């Protein structure tokens, strides 16, 4: 099996899967607590329990996507939006 024909931009995909997927999944945890429509305990517990699934999905997606920029954009959007939500919540925009 020829790796070059199977994956494009292999190194970038490695970085996306090993680094960006982890950072995105971790940043999603506090971010999700700001918008999940549940009681406080559930708001904390549900993102924590979803973490392994989110990371696995992002990791696999980083390799499966047709082009490497697709998962990069998706992860970046998720990352920035959740980081923004967390920042707003910390600034007092949300409880």
């Amino acid at each position, binding site marked *: 099996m020829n790796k070059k024909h199977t994956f494009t931009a292999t190194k970038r995909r490695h970085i996306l899967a090993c680094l960006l997927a982890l950072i995105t999944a971790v940043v999603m945890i*506090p971010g999700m607590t700001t918008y999940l429509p549940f009681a406080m305990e559930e708001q904390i517990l549900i993102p924590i329990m979803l973490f392994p699934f989110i990371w696995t999905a992002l990791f696999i997606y980083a390799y499966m996507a047709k082009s490497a920029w697709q998962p990069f954009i998706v992860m970046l959007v998720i990352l920035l939006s959740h980081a923004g939500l967390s920042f707003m919540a910390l600034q007092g925009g949300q409880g």
Partner: protein
Amino acid sequence: MRSISLKKLFLLHSWVGIVTGILLFIVCFTGALAVLSRPELKIWANPELHQLDTVPSEKVMTLINHYHQQVPKEFGKNIHVYLPTGHNTHLLTILFESHDGDENYDEEAAYAYQFDPRNFSLVNQYYGAADYFYEHRKTDAPSFIGHFHADLHLGRPIGLILTGFLGLTLLVSVVTGLFIHRQIIKELFTFRRKKGLDVIVNDAHKVMGIWGSVFHAIIGFTGAFLGLATVILLPAAAFVSFGGDQDKLVEKFTAMPETIVSNNYQATAIDTILLDAQTRYPKAKVIDLTVMAHNDANAQVYLRLIGGDAVASQLLQYSGDGKFSKSMSSFGDIPGPAIKVLELLFPLHFGNFAGVFVKLVWALLGLTTALLPLSGIMMWLTKRTRGSNPTLSEVAYQRWNRVIIGSCGGLVLATAILFPLQVLLNNFIPVQLHNGYFGPLFFLSWLVWCLFAVLPINYYRYLQVTLLITGGSCMSVLPLNMLLSSSHAFSSNNTLVTVVDISFLFIGGLIIYVSQRIMAKRQVLIKPTTQEVTI
């Protein structure tokens, strides 16, 4: 599914397996043993627990009252009692704790008293930092393996993060593995045991992977959660909700909030509480209790129970006068379905929710989880030595095999050695010195066995010797116990001890038999060429 997607999944499955395979074997193999470590193997390893029934509740109360008189007042606010059930310490332990320390300690300090559960004589007493006491409790072979499984003895957070990420990679392997083995039904029933070793390994990989896929996924998910929860996930969750204060988050989920001392004397009815718990949940086992504000009108008592009809461990709350308040999860009385799921993660990972039979099933399935990455690596190596254009030379193939035998086989061997060592320590070395033996012997024997991989020896012979020593170590447990100990398979009047002793003999015999079978298969593979020449 398009063939390019399948190719990608196949490559991803291979990469993850090759990078994490050996580490995953190490964690899963020790995890399979750790399933049986508490309480079964721990009871076997500690003669103090062999003849034990239940500790009389009035004796527990008498000891708490007696030793409470001997500690400064601030140490009476939090009293932890660990019952000798094989889940915690091997001795009945009463720990008087002051969260704010005292004049000598700025951190949490404790007075601890430990009693032989057979006659309640004081065996050990301690005064100092509470953390130090917990970290330096007496260990034994099963506890050592259990801790190694949790954090590879690398400490926290590094060890926990590493095992947590191995859980995540296991999840990736399960998901990608299920996609690439599309002919699931056919592969479920294909095991050609009369073929060569390569075919057997290939079939075994698929059969173990597909039949156990749900189990492997559960172990991957729960392992990732248990490894990363306290190190990454909880701090991340606390970041917004509690302004980054993890202590506040823990406080929110703690089942035992601090009790305000009223300074009005009222005897805490610990014996009544213990009896009530046993009456309410006769099939469950009380493993520890926490007394807050002992002998005060505001006293609260919390009992942790395991087993019985409840799947997860439960916490019973009583007021000091013996009145039952409520039963709740270990994390407190938190409403909602998420906490129910969280509670289930622990028994699902440890397999301790429905008796010994389920534990044995969990241990066997855990062994298949350990063998999956190993068989995967073997398949990967074999594939690269075959065909008209092999990418791996015969020398490199042999070297890789020796690396696998040295690292994985070496771990199995080092683990097996711990059990006869436990028997020898119990009979020749004072208890307080036991902790110093397990680590050095385990890591040294593993390291020595890994170093043999550097030598250009026949890897089949290397495997055979590894298995022979492992089998021999297991088989030596029963005779050593009979020779040295007064409490062994045929004298202890404890079914558990008898079963464990005989199991070691059986498992050792099985390992030696397997080593002979592998060598016999090897001979068959070599012989046809010689026979052809003779004819």
